[in-house]
């Protein structure tokens, strides 16, 4: 603190003093101990100090607050704006509107859209036999099979084994129903068409354009986001919907039975590496291997010694879509013996 003749200060003088203000506005140990000591030495100035404190406190400004979800949305938009590899983001803002006044431009655009929608819906109701450009198709993968699909909007979907998939595009929405595991690389369309992935449980994923993995095998659903941002809706038994957002590198795990969910940070690469034919193992347990054999090949591992379930390995291995080869690899990695009995696999130390 500077040497100032504080003993001669009036209440206004204190209130105008930068160091004094600083103590009131942003107190810390150093400032507080300085001023407490000073007041102790100068009890006669107590009244002036008290008034000065109330003066500084009386400068208040109207408050403006963002809700948490607004903050999340701004944060997501920051990353969206950086996605330079998807130049169609926010096409509305790219469109040349020079020479026009923004506000008016919107009014005209809105009028045109309203007109268009009206004409469109009249036309559509008049001619029900030809649904407008709506596309529906389904596909599935068998055990030990992986498939890449290219959708009409040039989005790419990779399906893991044992997965059922339905796609439908109509009007302003692209929708997928999926059971199994799929990796989505969704293209952002010029007209901001939503892309929704429905699972057969109360969870769906809504995006504009991004890359993510959805896995519904077993008793849980996991959604891992590699890039961009996505919105999830989870509805409970009373049909109440909860919306939440996932950021790049986050995983949501949803328990199908209880409806509970948790969100955590993960290395997204680990969860999408299967699409490039590699299994990245990070404390991969025998239980994980059992789930893999079950999901991909429909083979059941019988593990009698439950202590083995927790043994884990780290590293990576190629995914070969042949159950015998995968078993051999797992066997070597875990240093265990596998015995095949039909569709069952018996494990021994």
């Amino acid at each position, binding site marked *: 603190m500077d040497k100032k003749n504080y003993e001669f200060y009036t*209440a*206004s003088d204190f*209130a*105008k003093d*930068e160091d004094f*203000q*600083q103590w009131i*506005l*942003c107190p*810390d*140990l*150093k400032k507080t*101990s300085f001023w407490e000591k000073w007041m102790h030495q100068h009890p006669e100035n107590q009244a002036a100090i008290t*008034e000065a404190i*109330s*003066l*500084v*406190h*009386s*400068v*208040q*400004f*109207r*408050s*403006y*607050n*963002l809700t948490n979800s*607004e*903050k999340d949305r*701004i*944060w997501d*938009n*920051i990353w969206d*704006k*950086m996605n330079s590899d998807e130049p169609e983001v926010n096409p509305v803002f790219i469109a040349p509107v020079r020479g026009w*006044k*923004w*506000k008016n431009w919107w009014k005209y655009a809105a009028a045109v859209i309203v007109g268009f929608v009206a004409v469109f819906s009249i036309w559509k109701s008049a001619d029900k036999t030809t649904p407008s450009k709506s596309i529906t198709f389904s596909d599935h993968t068998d055990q030990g099979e992986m498939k890449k699909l290219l959708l009409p909007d040039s989005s790419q979907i990779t399906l893991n084994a044992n997965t059922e998939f339905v796609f439908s595009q109509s009007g302003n929405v692209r929708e997928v129903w999926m059971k199994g595991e799929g990796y989505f690389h969704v293209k952002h369309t010029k007209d901001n068409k939503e892309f929704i992935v429905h699972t057969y449980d109360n969870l769906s994923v809504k995006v504009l354009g991004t890359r993510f993995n959805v896995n519904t095998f077993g008793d849980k659903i996991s959604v891992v986001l590699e890039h961009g941002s996505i919105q999830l809706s989870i509805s409970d038994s009373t049909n109440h919907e909860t919306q939440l957002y996932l950021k790049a*590198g986050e995983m949501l795990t949803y328990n199908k039975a209880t409806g509970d969910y948790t969100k955590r940070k993960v290395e997204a690469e680990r969860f999408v590496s299967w699409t490039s034919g590699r299994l990245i193992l990070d404390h991969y347990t025998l239980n994980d291997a059992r789930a893999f054999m079950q999901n991909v090949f429909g083979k059941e591992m019988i593990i009698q010694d439950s202590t083995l379930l927790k043994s884990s390995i780290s590293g990576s291995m190629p995914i070969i879509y042949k159950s015998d080869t995968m078993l051999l690899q797992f066997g070597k990695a875990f240093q265990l013996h596998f015995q095949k009995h039909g569709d069952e696999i018996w494990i021994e130390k």
Partner: protein
Amino acid sequence: MKELQPKQINLLTVSSSLGDLWEQFQSGDRDAFSKIYRNHIDYLYHFGMHFCLDSERVKDCIQDLFKDLWLDREHLTQTVQNLRYYLISSLRRRLLRSLQKDRRHPSDLLSDSFDFQLILSHESALINDEIYNEKKLLLQQGIASLTRREREVIYLRFYQDLSYSEIAALMAMKVDSIYNLVSKAISLLRTSIVLSFFFLFL
């Protein structure tokens, strides 16, 4: 001498944690970046709303600010004294630029009708509503004599906690002028508050 120790530790940790966070952010740590965002978003939004009352514009400029911060992180200065000051001055420039580009706003709007509205705190239980309203009226009359720019200075000092010299740099003013303005505001407040004390004892 013993009592000096905790103060020093306090100072050290405060300054090094900002340094660390900034360094982590510059080396590409997204968590550090997210922390910076979380720490400052409320203050930036509050400043922006007082500056132009246009929520969408404020959000847009904040998005651009953080986007550019991330993309340019390797080229930014390595020592930031006060991140709040750094971010507010950037947001202020962006808002000005955005408003100038926008033909909806004639430029004279910038000089006057914006916010930075001072309000009286209603904390003292001794003061009843009548007196509070009396105070408020007096204060408003006083505040009306301040220009928008002057109110912005008061705001930056008392809400955003920027130093006199930071405000001077931000507003392209002299430190003396900042001091005089703060004096003026304090006098205004004092008149209204002291008068209300006077009413209280009548």
